[in-house]
């Protein structure tokens, strides 16, 4: 058994962190809320770096890598609240497999968003090509985007009205589902990074903040709050790796693994962000502190690709029919 990242993945994570941290940060996310700055690193830079297109085959101009490779990068993106989401690229790579548009995406000539039925669309802002499932067929076309007032502006949510679409795949339900599952895996990886990072911020503060003559992290009430978040973060990490591995090697396990990862990510990030705000006391709910930027991410991500309730329901449905 070797259920761990190998050196290659660790190097990939380091490289992704180096690239992403040059522009993306909680401060950049705050600037989007403050004065409408654009998301960092942004679509063009992400594509140019090659990180966003890892799962696109080499012949289409991508990296020809695995879902696990992308998950490793997505964790780093989550830590820095980077955007647009790698979920969008992961799903597009599945949906456009075998289509010329995939090379356009990898070449930076197209900005894609994937349109779900249930409300404002992830990374709709700035997209020019929209993929959707209509009557069981995969369709593609232009659309008009109405940006909505953001809770988390890095998610680029907007209402999409599709223009004239072209049918790409007639019987695409399975492919769409697979794209959702890969997307849930990458979403959970971004959630993992965000949760792990916000927890680090909380742990660091609990070591340096003194009350009643001691570091507050010495008190069980504070310590145990952080430990519970830590346990969830590490279990989420395991589920993300499992789901990514399943996407690459064990398609039979992907439905359960991706639903479990999605559900755990929603719960874990929400609880970690909430706990860390509480640990900080007054400074924790100020605009200038980073905690609320992770909290905002959690309050949006829980609804993406199906909400946590539907993901837990799916886990249970799969469990009782196994």
């Amino acid at each position, binding site marked *: *058994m*070797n*259920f*761990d*990242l*190998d050196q290659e993945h660790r190097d990939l994570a380091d490289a992704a962190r180096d690239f992403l941290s040059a522009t993306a940060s909680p401060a950049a996310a705050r600037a989007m809320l403050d004065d409408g700055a654009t998301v960092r690193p942004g679509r063009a830079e992400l594509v140019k770096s090659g990180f966003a297109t890892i799962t696109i085959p080499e012949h289409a101009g991508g990296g020809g890598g695995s879902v*696990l490779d992308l998950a490793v990068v997505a964790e780093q993106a989550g830590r820095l609240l980077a955007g647009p989401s790698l979920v969008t690229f992961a799903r597009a790579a599945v949906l456009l497999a075998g289509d010329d548009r995939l090379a356009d995406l990898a070449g930076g000539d197209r900005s894609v968003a994937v349109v779900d039925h249930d409300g404002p669309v992830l990374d709709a802002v700035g997209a020019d090509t929209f993929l959707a499932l209509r009557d069981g067929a995969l369709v593609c076309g232009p659309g008009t985007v109405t940006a909505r007032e953001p809770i988390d502006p890095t998610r680029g949510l907007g209402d999409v009205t599709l223009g004239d679409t072209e049918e790409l795949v007639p019987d695409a339900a399975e492919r769409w589902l697979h794209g959702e599952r890969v997307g849930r895996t990458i979403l959970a990886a971004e959630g993992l990074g965000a949760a792990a990072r916000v927890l680090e911020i909380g*742990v660091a503060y*609990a*070591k340096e903040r003194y009350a009643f003559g*001691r*570091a507050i*992290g*010495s*008190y*069980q009430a504070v*310590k*145990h709050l*952080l*430990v*519970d978040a*830590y*346990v*969830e973060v*590490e*279990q*989420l*990490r*395991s*589920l993300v*790796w*499992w789901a990514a*591995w399943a996407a690459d*090697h064990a398609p039979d396990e992907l439905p*359960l*693994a991706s639903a*479990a990862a999605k*559900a*755990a990510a929603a719960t874990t990030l929400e609880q970690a962000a909430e706990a860390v705000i509480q640990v900080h006391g007054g400074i924790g709910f100020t605009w200038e502190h980073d905690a609320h930027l992770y909290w905002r991410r959690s309050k949006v991500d829980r609804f993406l690709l199906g909400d946590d*309730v539907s*993901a*837990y*329901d*799916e*886990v*249970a*449905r799969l*469990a*009782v*029919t*196994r």
Partner: protein
Amino acid sequence: MDFDDTREEAAWRAEVRAFLEQHRDDGTDRDTVWDTGTARTWQATLYDAGFVGVTWPVEAGGRGGTPMQQAIIDQEMSRLDLPPLINLIGIGMCGPTVIVHGSADQKQRYLKRLLRADDIWCQLFSEPAAGSDLAGLRTRAVRGGDSDNGGDNSHWLVNGQKVWTTRAHQSDYGILLTRTDPDVPKHRGLTMFVVDMKAPGVTVRPLRQMSGGADFNEVFFDDVVIPDAERLGDVGDGWRVALTTLMSERLSLGGGGTGIGPRAETVARHVAEHLGALSPDRQALVRQQLGKAYVAVLGARYTGYRQLSRISRGELPGPEASAGKLSGTRSARDLADLAVRVLGADARVAGGFWQELQAGLPGMAIAGGTDQVLRNIIGERVLGLPAEPRADKGVTFKESLAAERGTP
């Protein structure tokens, strides 16, 4: 990344599996196994086949194997739903302590018999006034009996009480942590012994648990004589010896891959059988509860696989392994509660398998480290948070007792 055995691991697994499948009927019936005679025979059969104490050194009666080999045995036993070995505490805790701290003579006399369950062992640590704070224990061992008898250093006289001692009523020997010096800080005045559980002055009284079962005991020591040759480690070094015991528990049991309480898959099948009888809105609620517990179990299981991978590489399990017990006892309780709930009219009366299981689970969150102690361990040793404030630092055991009683 992969979930496959290495070639050596696969060969070992095949060997273990073949043996267990061939002999499983000797061990599958849990009711039979609690009969100590059958359970001893079952462990001896496994030992003679080379599957007990694999991580122990060859000279101690083991086979000098790896923790991964032990983990594979644990997995295969769990796969066949075989009960734990009767001498698990001896194998996991007492024996390793004797290996590290015992004399050549003690090793010769005890170890192989322990592995074959010729002798059953228990661990006499906890006391009525010393649970999580084990070092506050009060059982006294006095050299030569009393101070007037200072000339005779060949034996110790022990008085006091232990409690929550699993299998004491079936045990032949125990490792006993005592206080030999109350005039130094409490961690420094302890000494460990091997005690003969059949010696005069040892009284074992079974304790009934909330589940109705009686697996553990209180043990009284009244002027029990222990030869000095049965001391484990130096006088006053008992805390360090006890840490060997507690660390061994984590190592020998392999860790990772096997869960706590009912298997989530078993609960899911049970829920599936009862789901149809519920109203649609109830079904939706039950699925939420099952989904949440199931995700927690999967998260712990795959985190266990990460630990197993480190063990497979030859690394030792660290304090982060406490997280598995912490979350495992929580999800076990959640799953059992759900399993009982879907019984409908029968849920509020006893007698069924799930009701019995349910009553055994709160105790699992206490035995072997309470949830709160485990959180302290993770917080301090994994996250690096500062230790809890403690009032007993730098004072002698006597002084800390006086402070407890409110007499300065």
